[in-house]
């Protein structure tokens, strides 16, 4: 059989969306969705997931890019002509209509005959477990019931694709879990392609055939739930999905990686030799046991030794923070409790080490030379020494680079040479890797051992002796 590209029901190509304020909420998003697939778009709030869904539904027009449905252009169709229906986040039931009329709305518009409508509505309500609620006022229903009606209303038109915009977000935990199972079951019965948007990583992993992780308008990773969990492609994905230890490491050679001052055998290849990388260790993949000082066998068995700093019961397992002898803090989960103060040994199997390419090793910004000892970048003027500008003339476009430790953060945001906001925090075992968003909306990366919170306003000090300047190549 010839496989055509129509294997994909929806093809999203290079879609970008720029709002009136000039901010890109989607930048160059490409995604193909297979017929009958359950795809979840996952990301923190403001990552563009809802915007993407609204582009599919026809409520927003992308600034650029194409979207096809069944190989036909979708963007030229207005919302009401798209064979796509949506389950809205806050249900958006019609308050002036009862349950029956809400569900029948789509069929009535298409002029389906009464008896057929009757049959279809009964069928849809039965599917969502709302039989006998036909004549109820929708405002008298609980959140979960309204959700079911909204679902029945959306599937009655038999759409090619069903969009679900955080449909379970307003329900309590228990109800949400039950509804997740039901959604999965309804997807199986209906055979419709589901595109589900959520910020709840557990929900995404439970429900989907494939997960699309988004951040700041860009796709970070697309994969099956197990891929996403076990082989995150970058620190953001590793940190966002589940608990993780993310550490700086050096790939010594194929299948051997060095972190926490120890060489670990691993299964990853192709990173090159002596290459700086990040590793992800899932807390449940770290083996832990009490370290017996006088036992010779233990000395060779355990790769890391340390003291348990805290131990919290999490329901099924215990979560422990272990401070290793060489100064790294690791999160470990185990069915057994090791109380704070216990001296333990840690072991990590080669296949449980996920090695990732480093996204960046230093800060780089574009700027220009203002005079023989002054340059401009990050919308700020900086004094530099004449030696740093050797070979450059006034007006030259330059590339400025400096390490993560050239930056010092100040509590008082008026203190520094410029100010910014803590945007993203990543704990690297013995220090924090912070993303600071400057006033000019550029990201500065900083390594620090001080504790900051997301959203903190900080003053930024830069040690200009540590910056390197070179001419921008055109």
């Amino acid at each position, binding site marked *: 059989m010839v496989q055509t590209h129509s294997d994909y029901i929806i093809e999203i190509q290079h879609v970008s969306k720029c709002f009136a304020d000039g901010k890109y909420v989607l930048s160059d998003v490409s995604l193909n969705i297979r017929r009958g697939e359950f795809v979840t778009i996952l990301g923190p709030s403001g990552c563009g997931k809802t915007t993407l869904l609204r582009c599919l539904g026809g*409520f927003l027009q992308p600034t650029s890019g194409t979207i096809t449905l069944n190989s036909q252009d979708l963007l030229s169709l*207005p919302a009401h002509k798209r064979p*796509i229906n*949506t389950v809205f986040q806050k249900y*958006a039931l*019609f308050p002036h209509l009862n349950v029956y009329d809400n569900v029948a709305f*789509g069929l009535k*518009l298409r002029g389906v005959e009464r008896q057929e409508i009757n049959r279809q509505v009964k069928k849809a309500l039965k599917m969502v477990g709302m039989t006998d609620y036909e004549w109820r006022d929708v405002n008298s229903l609980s959140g979960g019931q309204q959700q079911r009606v909204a679902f029945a*209303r959306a599937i009655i038109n038999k759409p090619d694709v069903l969009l679900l915009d955080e449909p379970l977000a307003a329900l309590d935990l228990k109800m949400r879990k039950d509804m997740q199972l039901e959604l999965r079951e309804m997807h199986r019965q209906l055979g419709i392609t589901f595109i589900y948007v959520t910020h709840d990583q557990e929900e995404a992993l439970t429900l989907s055939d494939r997960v699309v992780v988004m951040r700041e308008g860009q796709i970070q990773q697309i994969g099956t739930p197990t891929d996403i969990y076990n082989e995150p492609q970058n620190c953001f994905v590793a940190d966002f999905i589940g608990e993780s230890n993310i550490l700086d490491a050096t790939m010594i050679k194929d299948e051997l990686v060095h972190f926490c001052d120890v060489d670990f055998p691993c299964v990853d290849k192709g990173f090159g030799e002596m290459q700086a990388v990040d590793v992800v260790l899932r807390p449940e993949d770290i083996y832990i046991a009490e370290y017996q000082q006088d036992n010779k066998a233990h000395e060779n068995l355990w790769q890391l030794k340390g003291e348990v700093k805290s131990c919290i019961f999490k329901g099924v397992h215990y979560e422990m923070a272990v401070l290793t002898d060489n100064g790294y803090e690791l999160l470990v989960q185990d069915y057994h409790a090791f109380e704070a103060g216990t001296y333990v040994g840690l072991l990590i199997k080669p296949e449980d080490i996920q090695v990732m390419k480093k996204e960046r090793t230093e800060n780089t910004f574009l700027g220009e030379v203002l005079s023989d000892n002054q340059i401009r970048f990050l919308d700020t003027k900086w004094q530099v020494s004449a030696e740093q500008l050797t070979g450059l003339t006034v007006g030259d476009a330059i590339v400025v680079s400096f390490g993560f430790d050239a930056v010092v953060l100040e509590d008082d945001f008026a203190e520094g040479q410029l100010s910014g906001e803590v945007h993203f925090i990543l704990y690297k075992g013995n220090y924090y890797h912070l993303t600071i968003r400057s006033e000019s909306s550029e990201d500065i990366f900083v390594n620090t051992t001080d504790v900051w919170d997301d959203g903190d306003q900080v003053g930024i000090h830069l040690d200009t002796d540590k910056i390197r300047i070179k001419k921008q190549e055109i």
Partner: protein
Amino acid sequence: MFHFNDIHTRSRWAWPYIIFLFCFVVMPLVMIVIYAFEDNTGAFTLNNFVRFFTRSEAINTFFYSLGIAFYTTLVCFLLGFPAAYFMGMEEYKVSTVLAMLFILPMSFNSLLRTIATVEVFSLANIPLGEGTLMFGMVYNFLPFMIYPIYNTIQKMDKSVIEAARDLGANRKEVFIKIIFPLSMPGVYSGIAMVFMPTVSTFAITELLTRNKIKLFGSIIQENIQSGVLLNYGAALSFIMLVFILLTNLFNKTEGVNDEK
């Protein structure tokens, strides 16, 4: 410390107004009822009502007033709804500016506005009569129609519009099946706020028709002012009160159905 949640403390704060209400709203109403059922000498009688129902002049004025009120309300609705709809669907900033613009004239006394209108008509050599009366009525009462409708549409959860489009409704269908039915509570309040006050208006009528046309309000006013027919005037007021109560009841039941 104030105990804001203490119901007794809070109700105590309302006492001044409750006393005011009793003296200037409840008592006059009670007096209207008493006077309506008395003759000049203070003896009980139903003659005041018999007089109303047997004199074609009063009955005719009553129905004529209802007619004028009906047309005023209709014109206000036809002009007001599209304006309210436009403002209600606009972005918040735009709509508040527009709302300010049409609420602003309301802060001037309606008599002043009406006198000004009369001047405009006389300048333009337009004879005063039914047409100018209708104009004056609509001019005065239009904001009372627009505001409740605007308010309802503005507060409407706009996601239901997207939901309707999503289910296949085009613009027209969205309006007919969603926006219009959902704006009905506002329409009912608008009608209530325009219809009854126009029936009982007398100042606008007097000024804008040079007393050529009399509405029910004018008749009540004339009878009460004459002194001799005070009890008859009270009876007419009583009839109107009953009418207002009836329409309000109708309005209430409709409103409840829609808002719940």
